[in-house]
């Protein structure tokens, strides 16, 4: 170790310690992204090897932008991300506020709230398929009771299907948002509330001027996580609708998956994944800019 003494040695040691981690990140995170970008610039059709793999520049991206199916999928994805993220973070916040109060059996309720999140998505999706079945599903029984004639085929109707997938996602992951917000709530010192109460602040004022600003960092984290996850929604669609009915739930990830794995268009499918990647990256950067900076300023001010 003596040889490593001094600032230079220290720097070397730091790099040495970082290197394994960097190598893993490069191999498993960075390289696939680069490789996807490279693939997306070529035309590769698996079942037509005679075409070779010519470099086509941005042709795949040009087609992606002009193809009605891809645009439709992009629209569906944005609708899914907007609706599910908004609902999950608001519902999660409400749940967190309730769970933050002390009441008898709180531990049990907290555990129960987490159950949907703990169920594997594939199992949950299958369960929702049963619930939404047009003949023996629970949903029809809840909404229409014994009136069999008006039973709806929820997953068969282009108008309802996306809503059904959003509902399943909200049911499943609101608890995750709740967990993060709850963690944020727990860090707020209790004496602040006592002081505010002594100063005559009502419950709404305490929430508006105390809880909300202090829980904002946690809220932002929940928002970023949920948005990124929502962009990558796949398993719910895979199990519940396979992108149907009439492509009404054909989110970008599923569209790209079908292009790449079922149809063998490796180049075009890669362009779709790169697009999703860029969208997620853009959204994360916007969040960081909007929420992150204000937070930093708020904290240092």
């Amino acid at each position, binding site marked *: 170790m003596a040889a490593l003494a001094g600032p230079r040695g220290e720097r070397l040691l730091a790099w040495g310690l970082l290197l394994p981690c960097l190598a893993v990140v490069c191999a498993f995170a960075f390289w696939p992204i680069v490789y996807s970008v490279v693939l997306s610039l070529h035309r590769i*059709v*698996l*079942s*037509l*090897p*005679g*075409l070779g793999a010519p470099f086509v520049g941005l042709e795949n991206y040009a087609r992606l932008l002009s193809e*009605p*199916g891809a645009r439709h999928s992009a629209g569906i994805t944005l609708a899914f991300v907007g609706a599910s993220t908004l609902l999950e973070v608001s519902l999660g916040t409400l749940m967190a506020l309730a769970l933050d109060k002390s009441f008898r059996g709180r531990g049990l309720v907290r555990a129960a709230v987490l159950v949907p999140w703990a169920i594997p998505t594939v199992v949950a999706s299958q369960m929702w398929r049963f619930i939404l*079945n*047009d*003949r023996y599903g629970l949903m029809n029984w809840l909404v229409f009771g014994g009136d*069999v*004639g008006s*039973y709806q*085929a929820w*997953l*068969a*109707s*282009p108008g309802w299907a996306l809503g059904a997938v959003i509902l399943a996602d909200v049911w499943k992951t609101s608890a995750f948002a709740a967990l993060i917000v709850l963690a944020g709530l727990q860090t707020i010192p209790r004496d602040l509330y006592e002081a505010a109460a002594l100063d005559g602040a009502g419950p709404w004022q305490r929430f508006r001027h105390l809880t909300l600003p202090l829980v904002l960092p946690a809220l932002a984290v929940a928002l970023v996580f949920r948005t990124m996850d929502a962009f990558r929604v796949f398993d719910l669609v895979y199990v519940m*609708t*396979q*992108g*149907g*009915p*009439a*492509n009404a739930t054909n989110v970008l990830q599923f569209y790209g998956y*079908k292009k790449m*794995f*079922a*149809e*063998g*268009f490796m180049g075009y499918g890669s362009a779709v994944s790169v697009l999703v990647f860029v969208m997620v990256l853009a959204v994360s950067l916007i969040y960081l800019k909007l929420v992150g900076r204000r937070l930093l300023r708020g904290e240092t001010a």
Partner: protein
Amino acid sequence: MALVLPGCGGEAQDPNTIRLVAWKFNNPGLWRRLADQFEQLHPPLKVALEIAPHSSTAYHDLLTQKLKNRSSEVDVFLMDVVWPPEFASAGWALPLDQMLPPGEKERFLPAAVEASSWHGRLYGAPLYVSAGALYYRQDLLEHLRLKPPKTWPQLVSQVKMTLAHQGNQDLAGYVGQFKQYEGLVCNMMEFVWSAGGRALLPGDAGGALSKPRDLKAVRFVRDSLIDNAAPRGVLSYQEPESLEVFAQGGALFMRNWFYAWPILNDPARSKVAGKVGLAPLPRFSGGESASCLGGWLVGLSAFSTKPEKAFKLIKFLASEQVQRRLVLEEGLAPARRALYDDPWVLKAHPHFKKLPPLLATARSRPRTPLYPAVSQGLQVYFHRAISDEDSDLPILADTADIEINRLLGLIKEE
């Protein structure tokens, strides 16, 4: 015999282990028992099994993933009847013609041989087949002195008569598979064919969905079937959902594959056992009854390091004795013609004597190396067209034709 687990390192190099990737039978032990029998007949060869999911699409993803990585861990694989053009063109499957004794091809059903061939060469040994058929409630039809319908409009009017007579809200008219997935293509192609249409012109000449006969069939499904003779829910049904409805006595007619017959006549699983009839699918006036060919073939991987040993397994699986076992133990319809007159088979499954006329109407779905992509295009088109009663059919069909022509253009470019 040693149970060889898939994924264990080293065995791929074992020159006597043949790796078989197959999809699941309903009877999970059957593959292992077949493999055991093969190992007894051909020592020292061993069979390592990899059993894939019970969905053709998921299985396609898994298998092509291995083949595109040129994996030597697959020697023999099961192929859906729609895959040979793709597998042949991609160079994943080897032609088997040279390994077959002369005259062997003719022993299989012609439709199955046609499905296994691409550009004049055979890429798979047919294992078992299936086809779409019309199941009907014999008791309900006989009650009204009706015979199974010959045409689709007849079917619709029989549904109306029966439902009016029964006055039972829980009874639906027609159920089939109209979810947006591969089964939708089969169901819709049967309507299109029986109207004299064909979706794709032969020889990659282009899409034909906007031709009048094709449009007529799709319009009929949208206007006269969905939400009329068939409940709207069929738009989300695959085979199990439609079978369940019919087996519970919830429908007058069902389109399904051959596998439904034994289930429907098993009192433990069906409320309509003994009350079910089986008929060829109806047609449109001026058209012919047509059913979609389904089934599985056995193919040889181009990346196998031991093709000759692997072919022994293929020959075994395609043999008459194995196909007889598949009938007796699994109820699957054999690809070998002789078995439809086999006394053992007919004793165990008397309904098999009804199958040859149904199989004679069986046709292959559009045959092209880009079938998965063409199928996606067809699925989107058909589902859009039939799930919205105000859909602008000619425009949707034109759009789908353009997309299909663009895909077929890639093949010409190759």
